[in-house]
């Protein structure tokens, strides 16, 4: 072994010293199919994860990437995230020109070291090292080799060889090595075939590999990448994480461990708070009313501040600390709310969720600690399960917005973990209903009143405007109603306290010069406020069409026209019925009134790839009709 090591080293020295040695990285060697529409090509990639012990997992990556244009540059940048449980053992690399001649090399010291605190956090202990080769000519190839030591095995890096759009893959290989006796769970998706299994001196090795994957384009309305990208997840049954030891083989065991190891000891509240809580709910009859009162107390007393250090990335700050500080992150605030509810004997579940406007489930058949990025609270009232988002001072009691709705989450309870589903709002419930009465002045100005009701997911979209003050509110309104020379007056919001929260917005509006006149004709786009944007027309749609969230919009506008004004472009009615939704719009004149009505319903769901053309035709037709002008003559 030693001798081979020496020879390899010698070869490297000669190669870099000579600066002229040719490698296998000539562009001409790349198969043509991989060059088509690719910003970059992964020439080769070898990842070896060697679990020597739960606290010693060696992660060794060797890869080479050819970059064709500026768009592929991001792929050439190597970014390595690390923290207290990740040690960077070495990093090195070389750069090659189009003909495969080496033009440069770099080492650890060329990397920039920066903190990697997320924008939403006050502090985290995560850091990163990154490097981008200094090459001004495309194409070029960069080769990296690095080795990390993970001092934990709770989270094993996932293999995702084709995760990036516009990048093709010549070859990628992933090997997981462990002791023969180690129990590990493995899940592979979109990988044809079985891994190669080998016995290496009593240790077992599993290897997956792919080659010649052509670049996939980024497509709008595409489903969760997990459903079409190749990935392999590995989860050891026995694990160690920041001195915490545990084992799990399914969600139930993982949920139980989370509860026992991370939650159970942090639910104690100071006596004064316990007394205050008891007093607060003393006159409340039902558990739900009590919970509502305590939620208001939480919202009044706390705010969201994120600090993530070590095990604190998974373990909430103790309830007593949140009580004292008046702040915490999602874990800390949910845990605190749970502690408050415990005082009055209301049981609740600490639930891990993958939050974001895209709905993402926890993998139903593969438990893993790397899933989920947020925590919410579930109150399992009989036939009335209630969910609480604890990081917002604004969200109404029992409402989950589009950040966490309609997806499976992991409830971590004393009895074990279980997957629950958060509520879904029906398409029609995500309602935006607008009534406007506008008067058209001789100079083309529109003036009038607009009233709009927003519900469920659409409530979520507009809550921020309602809650903001003067200048901010005005700027947010101008972003929402992006019309030239718009003026708002008498802005008011009213919240509805129903099961599905609603928000009613009213304002007086002026739109100077909205309907210009020319040659005794007046041009008026009757759909003033709610025009749908276009979506790209794709020739070869590859992925299924995924519409994440459906909604219903209704607009009803009555224009009062100046005397003697008539509609010369004619009244019209258009109806479109498609698998993706319905559209109906009318324009008609009665006396000096012009009425515009529009109803647009979008369905959510997944549709076959070949229906994308129909989808884009539907949406782009709506766009055209939304912009249709009424031509009036005076």
């Amino acid at each position, binding site marked *: 072994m030693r001798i081979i090591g020496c020879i390899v080293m010698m070869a490297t020295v000669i190669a870099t010293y000579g600066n002229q040695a040719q490698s296998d990285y000539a562009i001409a060697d790349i198969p043509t199919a991989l060059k088509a*529409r690719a*910003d970059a090509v992964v020439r080769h990639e070898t990842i070896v994860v060697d679990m020597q012990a739960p606290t010693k997992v060696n992660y060794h990556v060797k890869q080479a990437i050819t970059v*064709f*244009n*500026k*768009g592929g540059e991001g792929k050439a940048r190597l970014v390595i995230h690390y923290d207290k449980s990740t040690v960077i053992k070495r990093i090195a690399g070389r750069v090659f020109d189009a003909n495969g001649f080496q*033009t*440069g090399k770099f080492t650890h010291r060329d990397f*920039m*070291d*920066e*903190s990697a*605190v997320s924008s939403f956090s*006050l*502090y985290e202990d995560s*850091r990163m090292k990154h490097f981008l080769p*200094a*090459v*001004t*000519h*495309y194409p070029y190839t960069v080769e990296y080799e690095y080795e990390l030591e993970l001092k934990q095995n709770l989270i094993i890096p996932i293999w995702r060889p084709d995760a990036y759009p516009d990048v093709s893959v010549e070859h990628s290989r992933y090997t997981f090595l462990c002791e023969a006796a180690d129990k590990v769970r493995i899940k592979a998706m979109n990988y044809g075939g079985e891994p190669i299994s080998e016995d290496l001196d009593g240790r077992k090795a599993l290897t997956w590999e792919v080659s010649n994957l052509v670049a996939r384009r980024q497509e709008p309305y595409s489903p969760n990448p997990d459903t079409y990208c190749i990935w392999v997840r590995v989860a050891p049954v026995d694990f160690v994480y920041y001195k915490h030891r545990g084992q799990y083989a399914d969600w139930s065991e993982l949920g139980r461990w989370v509860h026992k190891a991370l939650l159970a000891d942090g639910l104690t509240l100071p006596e004064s708070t316990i007394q205050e809580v008891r007093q607060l709910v003393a006159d409340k009859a039902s558990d739900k009313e009590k919970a509502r009162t305590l939620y208001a107390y939480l919202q*009044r007393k706390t*705010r969201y*501040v994120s*600090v993530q250090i070590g095990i604190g990335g998974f373990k909430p700050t103790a309830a007593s600390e949140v009580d*004292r*500080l*008046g*702040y915490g992150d999602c874990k800390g605030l949910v845990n605190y709310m749970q502690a408050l509810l415990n005082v009055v004997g209301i049981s609740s579940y600490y639930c891990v969720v993958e939050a974001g406007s895209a709905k993402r489930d926890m993998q139903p058949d593969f438990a893993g600690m790397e899933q989920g990025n947020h925590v919410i609270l579930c109150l399992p009232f009989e036939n009335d399960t209630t969910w609480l988002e604890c990081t917002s*001072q604004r969200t109404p009691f029992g409402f989950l917005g589009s950040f966490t709705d309609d997806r499976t989450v992991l409830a971590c309870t004393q009895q074990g973990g279980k997957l629950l589903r958060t509520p879904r709002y029906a398409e029609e419930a995500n309602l935006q209903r607008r009534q406007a009465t506008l008067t058209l002045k001789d100079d*083309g100005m529109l003036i009038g009143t607009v009233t709009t009701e927003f519900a469920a997911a659409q409530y979520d979209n507009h809550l921020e405007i309602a809650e903001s*003050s*003067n*200048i*901010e509110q*005005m700027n947010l309104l*101008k972003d929402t109603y*992006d019309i*030239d*020379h*718009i*003026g708002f007056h008498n802005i008011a919001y009213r919240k509805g306290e129903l099961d599905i929260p609603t928000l009613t917005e009213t304002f007086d509006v002026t739109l100077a*010069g909205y*309907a*210009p006149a*020319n*040659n005794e*004709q007046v*041009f008026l*786009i009757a759909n003033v406020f709610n025009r749908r944007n*276009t979506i*790209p*027309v*794709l020739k070869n749609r590859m992925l299924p069409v995924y519409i994440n969230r459906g909604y219903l919009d209704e607009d009803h506008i009555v224009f009062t026209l100046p005397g003697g004004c008539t509609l010369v*472009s*004619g009244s019209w009615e258009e109806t479109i019925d498609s698998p993706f939704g319905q559209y109906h719009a009318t324009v008609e004149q009665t006396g000096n009134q012009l009425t515009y009505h529009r109803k647009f319903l979008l369905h959510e769901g997944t549709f076959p790839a070949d229906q994308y053309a129909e989808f884009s035709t539907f949406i*782009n037709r709506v*766009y*055209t009709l939304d912009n249709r002008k009424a*031509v009036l003559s005076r």
Partner: protein
Amino acid sequence: MLKSYLAFISFVLLPWCLVAQDFAFGSITPEDNKLVKNDLDSFSNAAVLNEYGKAYMAYNDTRGYTELIVDYHVRIKLFNRDGYRYADIELPTYRDESGGRTDALLEIKAVTINIVDGRIVSIPLDKARIYKENVSKYVTHTKFTFPDLQDGSIIEYSYRLVSPYIFNFKTWQFQDDIPKINSQFEAIIPGMYTYNVTLRGPYKLTTQDAKLDRGAFRIAGRDIDCSHMTYGMQHIPAFVSEDYMTAASNFKSAIYFELSDVYRLNGANLKITKEWRNVDRELATDASFGSQMKRDNVFKSLLPEILKGAADDLGKAKALYRYIQQHIKWNRYLGKYSENGIKEALEERSGNIGDINLALIAGLSAAGLDAEAVILSTRDNGLVNDVHPVLTNFNYVVAKVNIGDSYYLLDATDPLLPFGLLPLHCINGKARVINLKKPSYWIALTSSQKSIVRYTLMAELFPNGMLKGRLLIQSLGYAAHRKRRELAEYTTVEEYMEHRNEQLIGFDMLAGEIDGREDVDVPLTERYEVEMKLYDSLASETVFFNPFFLNRIGKNPFNLDERTYPVDIGAVREDRVVMTIKLPHGYVLKSKPDDSNLTLEDNGGRYVTQTQLVGDTFSFSQLLTLNHTTYPPESYFALKELFGRIIRQEKIDVMLSKTNGK
């Protein structure tokens, strides 16, 4: 923009001088308590009740240099939860490259003060909840937030900063994005140091005072007298940032210091920055500046290859510019100084702004050309002081090459810039030209080229509403630069067109070619075969179509109700559209948009549209020019109105109707 200069008051003795002093930590006044939202303005969610700072110097015997010590103390009221973000504190400290000299933050003290049932409750900050984030090798952020916030909470903190960086003393920001009721600053400066002091922003000092502190600075066993200045402002409005504005620091009220002289203990006077001639000399000999400019030997062996085929001086300059553009990649660091040295930059093919453009200057000189360095301040860095030489104002350097009677300003850090065009972020007021042999001088930074786009369409409209024709798009100056940046994301023209076709609904580019993608010194020319559906109502006797489908403005970039700062667009703009459309057989033109001709006063800009019908050919032209790079706030509404009129004009359709019997 508004700048006034305080005369530097040294050693003026005012026996009756009022003593500014720090307010007591944690003891709030009835006024603090009473203040509520809207007392100061209608939009702020927090306000500074009181702010005090004191900066002075001390000689550190252990380290062997003079340090600046700043004591800072502030009290802020948070009116509501939207103001809570002012409770998240981030204090940056800096470290020099060697790590030897570092800022130190000491004695951080913070407290939340709440009124609970009429009683004052103070909750101090837990020291364990102060976090140090090592952002990069030069910067550390010390971060903390306040416990137990409620609507109306008062937060208060203080710290001491000990810094080796005495050059800018302490910049005191009177104005912030929340209003301040009172802000006081004391500067105690030993007699051996002289600073240029600048007050920026529109507001006047309400307190300004000077006295002498005898023997307040001790160095080498001697006590040196200090001048003790007090600056104060009261009722400072919040600063509201707006779009199309250059650096906020140009407008915010603040006091800036710049070291100009140091008197040595032996009586010798060390001029730091006093006159440009001193600066010139220093820059000329600076190892990271002048010395790099002089390293023409670096280019000796390279020149024959680079200059091969260059006929004249201009050709040589272009060849060198091209060479540097393509051989050194910008590492995203700014700076007027060379970070690694130009030789290393050339070898590593990577460098900061200084490395790249000083290398260019050295190369130009090596080729026998007359090249100078131009130091400037980028748009987001603010304007430079043109009264005193304030070197720290400058954060960028470009090359100036003089050929015959003309000169060219060159920035080789962006390979897509044509010769002679500076990037927009460099177009910012005045710049100083540094010549190694002659005195330095000012030049105005103006964009040497306009941003021009010209669309020419020759097409035929068919009865079914389909328009087919040839489209030519020419982009020049900044417009070409923008387009080239976009094109750089694609390997082939086909991929670019495919992407465009996906985005442009109803507008298809069937075939095309692009000239000038590689050669950035020529206009970028795109030629496409195009096809689009102009209207779809076949059945009716009359059809309408909108001729404003090329380069449509659509959205007014000016949407504010009030404006207090200039609108700065950087470069003169010219957009032109010319189209000739053969009308379909069997239709006649019934109505078309009236010609328009709108102008901004003082030749500030124009919008012109013209239509004409010759036989069955409809021709249409549209011109938008913005002739100034900067418009004063008074012109804001004229600009807004101009764009509003354009949008109105763009809504007007052409009407065709069927001819009878033909």
